[in-house]
C-alpha cells in the first residue's frame, strides 16, 4: 500500500472543497445579505500516536485519516449597509435574523433584503415567504415605514397619521454551526439548535435599517489571495501524487 498516494489524494479533495467555497463566495459577491463561507482545515492527515504510550514510533503508528475541511459561515461579520431609498428594503445592523414561514410551515431565518406584499396583504420576503410576525398591510396603504425596533407603520390613502401594523422581531442563534445555508440568503436552523428571541436593548441585538440593503460580506481581495494559496496547495498535492506514482513505477520496474 502506498500511503503517500492516499494522503495526497485526500489533500486534493480538501483543497477542492476550499476551492468550491471560494467560488461560491465570489459568485455571491453581489448577493444582498450573503455571508461568506470560510474553510478551516484541521489535521487532514497525521499519524496518531497511542496516548497511553507517548513514545510509540510514529512511523509505525496507524494512520489517522480524518478529512476535516470544516466549512463555516461568517455570520457574525456585518456587511455594509447600503441605502437604496426603496421603501420595501430592509436590512439588519447587528447579529439578529428575521423569522420567515417556509413553504411547509417551517421557520427559516433571513438577513433581510427586499420585502413584498402578498395578494392577501401579508408582508413577505421577495420570494413570497411570509414573515412570522404575520403583518397585514391594508390594500390602501400608500407608505410603509419600519422603525429601528421593527415596528411597522403604514399611512393609509385617506389619512395623514400612520397606523401601527405590528412589530417584526429579531432572533439570534448560538453559533454559525447551528444553521445551514439555503438559497437566496435564507438559513435553516438545525434540529438540535434553538433560536433566542432578542429584545432591542440586548447587546448586539441589532436594529432594523429601513430603505437599505446589506451587501455581502465577501472581500474580493481576501478571496483572491485565498484562491492563490489553495491553488498552490492543490498543485503541490498533485506533485506528490505524481511522485508516489513514480515510486510505484520504480518498484514495478525492479524485475526486468
Amino acid at each position: 500500500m502506498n500511503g503517500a498516494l492516499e494522503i495526497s489524494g485526500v489533500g486534493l479533495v480538501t483543497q477542492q472543497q476550499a476551492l468550491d467555497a471560494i467560488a461560491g463566495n465570489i459568485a455571491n459577491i453581489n448577493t444582498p445579505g450573503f455571508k461568506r463561507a470560510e474553510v478551516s482545515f484541521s489535521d487532514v492527515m497525521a499519524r496518531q500516536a497511542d496516548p497511553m504510550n507517548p513514545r510509540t514510533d510514529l512511523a509505525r503508528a496507524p494512520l489517522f485519516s480524518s478529512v476535516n475541511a470544516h466549512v463555516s459561515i461568517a455570520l457574525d461579520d456585518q456587511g455594509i449597509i447600503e441605502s437604496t431609498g426603496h421603501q420595501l428594503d430592509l436590512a439588519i445592523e447587528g447579529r439578529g435574523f428575521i423569522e420567515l414561514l417556509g413553504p411547509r410551515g417551517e421557520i427559516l431565518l433571513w438577513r433581510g433584503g427586499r420585502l413584498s406584499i402578498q395578494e392577501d396583504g401579508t408582508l413577505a420576503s421577495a420570494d413570497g415567504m411570509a414573515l412570522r410576525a404575520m403583518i397585514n398591510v391594508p390594500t390602501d396603504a400608500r407608505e410603509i415605514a419600519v422603525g429601528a425596533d421593527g415596528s411597522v407603520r403604514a399611512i393609509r390613502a385617506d389619512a395623514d397619521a400612520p397606523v401601527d401594523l405590528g412589530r417584526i422581531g429579531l432572533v439570534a442563534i448560538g453559533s454559525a454551526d447551528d444553521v445551514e445555508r439555503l438559497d437566496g440568503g435564507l438559513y435553516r436552523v438545525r434540529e438540535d439548535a434553538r433560536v433566542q428571541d432578542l429584545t432591542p436593548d440586548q447587546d448586539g441585538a441589532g436594529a432594523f435599517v429601513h430603505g437599505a440593503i446589506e451587501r455581502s460580506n465577501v472581500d474580493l481581495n481576501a478571496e483572491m489571495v485565498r484562491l492563490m494559496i489553495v491553488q498552490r496547495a492543490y498543485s503541490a498535492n498533485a506533485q506528490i501524487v505524481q511522485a508516489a506514482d513514480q515510486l510505484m513505477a520504480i518498484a514495478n520496474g525492479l524485475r526486468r
Partner: protein
Amino acid sequence: MTQGLLELGEVLLASSRRRLETVSRNVANATTTGYKSEIDFEQLQSAEASTDARSNLDIGPLRQTDGRFDFAIAGDGFFQVRAGEQLLYTRAGAFHRDTEGRLADAAGALLQAIDGGDLFVAADAEVSADGVVSERGVPIARIGVFTPHEDATLARVSGIYFQTDAALPVENAQIRPGMLEGANVALASEMLDMMTAIRGAEIGARVVQTYDTLIGQTISTFTRRQG
C-alpha cells in the same frame, strides 16, 4: 557481500517511501491551522535533538481572520484543550461556541482556562491581547497558554495536538484575537524532499538490479561450465 547489497537496496527503497509519506502529510496539511510539520527522522540524526525530534515547532505565519473566537499565540506556548479525559496542547486556535456555550475546536476539543476547566462564553464575549475573556466589560475568565516543563517531553499526538506530562502556564502570554496561525510547512523544502525521495528510490532500484545481474551472471557462468 551480495546479500548486503540487496539489503542496502531494500533499505533505500523503504526509506524513500517513508520520506515521501512524511512529505505527503506535510503538503496535505499545508493549509491546516496550527499544523506543525514533521521532520524525517533520518535527517535529524546528525542535528541537535529537540524536545520532540519528529516535529518542527517553529511558529507558523499569523494571518488575520477577524473570527470572534479565532486566537493565535504570539510567541511560545500552547493552548490547553480537553478531548474527553485527555489534556492536549495545540497552537491551532480556531474555536467556536458549541451548543452548551463552551469554546470548542473543529474536532470538538474544549479550550481550557488558565486555572483549568472549560471556558464558557457568551456569544458576544470579547477577548483581549492578554487572553482575558470579558462579557459586557466584566472579565470572567482567562485563556490558558502553557509550555511544557523543561524536563518534560512533548509527544506528537497528531499534526496539531501534542501531549506532555507537565505543563506550566506562560507568564505574560500574548494572544492575538481574530488571527490564526498557519501551518509551518515550507512547500519549497517539501518539494526538494520529494525529489530526494524519488532519486533515493532510483538508486535503491539500481542497486537491486545490479545485484540481480551479478547473480544472473554467476548462475549462467556456472551452468555453461557444467554443460
